[in-house]
C-alpha cells in the first residue's frame, strides 16, 4: 500500500521499508526542541536517567521565548535552569535574550530544520517546520527528555488528510486566512491524530512565510503534523538559510488518504476566528460592528517579515484608532533588524503602535499585553481559548496581519479590503 509523505519520513527514521497507519514505531530524531516553560520539566525528567550528557549536543536546542525577557522572578529561575543545563551539556543551539526569537520563527531562520527531518519539540506549534517538508510535531516535556537522552521518540503512525491547493491568493489575503478557513471547515478536532498534507498547483503562489503560518496552526485542527510538498520555493529558502542538505519525500501515487479536500485559494476572503475556538471562522459578510481594545501583531504564527510588511502597508500614513492599544512583536532579532532597515518600525511607531522585543508574551497571556475583563483583542496569534490572553471574560479574535492592521485603524474588526479601498 502506498505511503503518505509523513509515513515515508517516519519509515526512514525508524529504519523500516514501510509503515502503515496505526503502527507504533521508535524513530530517530534530527532535532529536539524546548523552551523556557517546557524545558525545566524536561530537565528534571532527564536527571532521573543519570546520563553523562545529551545524545547529540548539535541536535538539542532550547529557546528562551515564552516568558523572556524574564517577566518575573520565577520565570528568571526557569531560564536560569535552562541556561545552566545547556552550559553543562555543551548544547550548541541555546538561544537567550539577544540571540533568541520566537522558537518557530527562529529555527527555520537559523537553518536548523530541513526537508526530510524528523523533529520533536516540547511546544505544540512545533508542527510549523512541516512548511519545509519535515515531519515535525509537538510533544510534552517527558518526550523531550527522552529525545535529549536517546535521540528517539515513539510515534503512532498517522493517517492523513490531503489538501489540494489550486488558484492564487487575493491581495491582503494570506496564509492565516487559508488556515482559519480550513479549521473553520474541518473543526478543532477535524484532523485529530492525523497528518495534514498540503500540495497541488496552488502551492507555487504561497511564500514560505505563508506556508510556515499554515503548518503552524495544523495543531489547531488537532493534527499530529502539517506538511508541505517540497518545491523550488522550499529549496531556495533552505539554501538561503544554510540548512542541512534536503531529503525530499514524495507521497506515493497510490497513497491512501482519509479524505482529500480541494482548496481554491482565489476564493478565500479575509477570515476571522471568533471566541473561543479557532474553528469559529467567519468572513466579513457575517461580521458586524465589533469594537476592540487591543491589537497584537506577532507570535510564531504571524511575526515574520512578510507579516510585518503587510501590516506596515496598511498602517502607513494612517493612525491607530484612539483607545486601541496596538502591540507589534517582530518574531526574531533578524526580523526586527530587517523591519528596521525597511522602515517598517518607523511606520508602526508613527501610526501609534508600540514595537516590542521578540517574545511569545501576550499570545499565551504571559506578559506584554494582558487583557482585562470585558476587553476584546484582534490578534494574529493562534488560540482564542477562554482566558488565553488574560481575564476569562476577555475575548480574542484571530486574524491575519492585514486584518489586524485594518482593525487597528478603525477600532473595530475590519477587513483590509475595506480600509485599502478608501
Amino acid at each position, binding site marked *: 500500500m502506498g505511503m503518505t509523505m509523513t509515513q515515508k519520513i517516519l519509515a526512514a527514521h525508524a529504519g523500516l521499508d514501510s509503515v502503515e497507519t496505526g503502527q*507504533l514505531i521508535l524513530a530517530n530524531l534530527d532535532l529536539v526542541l524546548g523552551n523556557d*516553560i517546557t524545558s525545566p520539566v524536561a530537565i528534571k525528567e*532527564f536527571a532521573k536517567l543519570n546520563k553523562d550528557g545529551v545524545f547529540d549536543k548539535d541536535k538539542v536546542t532550547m529557546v528562551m521565548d*515564552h516568558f523572556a525577557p524574564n517577566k518575573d522572578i520565577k520565570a528568571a529561575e526557569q531560564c536560569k535552569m535552562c541556561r545552566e543545563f545547556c552550559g553543562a551539556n555543551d548544547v550548541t543551539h541555546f538561544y537567550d535574550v539577544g540571540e533568541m526569537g520566537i522558537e518557530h520563527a527562529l529555527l527555520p531562520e537559523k537553518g536548523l530544520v530541513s526537508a526530510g527531518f524528523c523533529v520533536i519539540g516540547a511546544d505544540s506549534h512545533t508542527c510549523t517546520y512541516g512548511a519545509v517538508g519535515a515531519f515535525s510535531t509537538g510533544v510534552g516535556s517527558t518526550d523531550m527528555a527522552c529525545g535529549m537522552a536517546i535521540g*528517539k521518540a*515513539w510515534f503512532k503512525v498517522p493517517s492523513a488528510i490531503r489538501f489540494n491547493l489550486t488558484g492564487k491568493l487575493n491581495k491582503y489575503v494570506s496564509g492565516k486566512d487559508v488556515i482559519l478557513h480550513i479549521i473553520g471547515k474541518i473543526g478543532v*478536532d477535524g484532523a485529530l491524530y492525523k497528518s495534514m498534507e498540503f500540495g497541488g498547483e496552488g502551492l507555487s503562489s504561497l511564500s514560505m512565510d505563508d506556508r510556515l503560518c499554515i503548518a503552524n496552526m495544523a495543531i489547531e485542527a*488537532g493534527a499530529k503534523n502539517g506538511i508541505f510538498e517540497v518545491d523550488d520555493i522550499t529549496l531556495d529558502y533552505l539554501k538561503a538559510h544554510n540548512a542541512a542538505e534536503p531529503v525530499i519525500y514524495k507521497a506515493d501515487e497510490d497513497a491512501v488518504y482519509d479524505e482529500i479536500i480541494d482548496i481554491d485559494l482565489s476564493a478565500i476572503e479575509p477570515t476571522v476566528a471568533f471566541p473561543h*475556538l479557532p474553528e469559529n471562522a467567519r468572513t466579513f459578510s457575517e461580521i458586524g460592528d465589533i469594537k476592540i481594545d487591543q491589537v497584537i501583531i506577532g507570535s510564531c504564527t504571524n511575526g515574520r517579515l512578510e507579516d510585518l510588511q503587510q501590516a506596515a502597508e496598511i498602517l502607513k500614513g494612517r493612525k491607530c484608532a484612539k483607545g486601541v492599544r496596538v502591540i507589534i512583536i517582530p518574531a526574531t532579532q533578524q526580523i526586527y533588524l530587517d523591519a528596521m532597515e525597511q522602515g517598517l518600525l518607523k511606520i508602526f511607531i508613527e501610526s501609534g503602535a508600540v514595537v516590542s522585543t521578540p517574545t511569545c508574551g501576550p499570545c499565551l497571556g504571559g506578559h506584554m499585553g494582558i487583557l482585562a475583563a470585558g476587553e476584546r483583542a484582534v490578534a494574529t496569534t493562534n488560540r482564542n481559548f477562554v*482566558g488565553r490572553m488574560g481575564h476569562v471574560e476577555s475575548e480574542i479574535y484571530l486574524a491575519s496581519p492585514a486584518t489586524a492592521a485594518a482593525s487597528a485603524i478603525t477600532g473595530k474588526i475590519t477587513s483590509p479590503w475595506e480600509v485599502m479601498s478608501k
Partner: protein
Amino acid sequence: MKYTGNVLKYGDNVDTDVIIPARYLNTSDHKELASHCMEDIDKTFVSRVQQGDIITAGQNFGCGSSREHAPIAIKASGVSLVIAKSFARIFYRNAINIGLAIVECPEAADNISEGDKVEADMDNGIIRNLTTGQEFKAAPFPDFVQKIIENGGLMESIAKGII
C-alpha cells in the same frame, strides 16, 4: 489496575489553557500547579476534588498547548483517571508518559453524570457506573503503551532498558 472515584464532569474541547492557565507556568512545582488546576473552567474544582476522583469529558480533551503541566496538575490534584470521548494527541501521550491513567470511551462519557461513583478496571477495559449500575467497555491500550504505563512512565521505561 482498578480505579474507583466520584465523577467531575466537563464538556467538549477542554483546553490546556483552562486546565492550567499560562500565568502559572512560571513554575513546575506539582503542588503549586495542582492548586490552580481547572481554574479557568471551574473555580470550584480545587475545593471539591478528592483523592481518587475521576474526570469525565467530551471530545478533544486537553487540546491546545503541549504543556505537560496540564496532566501533571490533574494527577497532582488526586484525580486517578480521565475518561473522555476523545483526547487531543499531545495530551494523550503526555498523560501516558507521566503515568496519568486516561481512557477513551464515548458511551461512558455520555452516560456518566456529575457526582456518580465509577469503577474502572483498566486490565479488561470495563467501566462500571456504581450509581446507576450501567457498564461500558473501553478499548485497552496497545501493548507498547501498556508497557510504558506498567513501568511507571517513559523515563522509567528507558531507565529499565525497555525502550
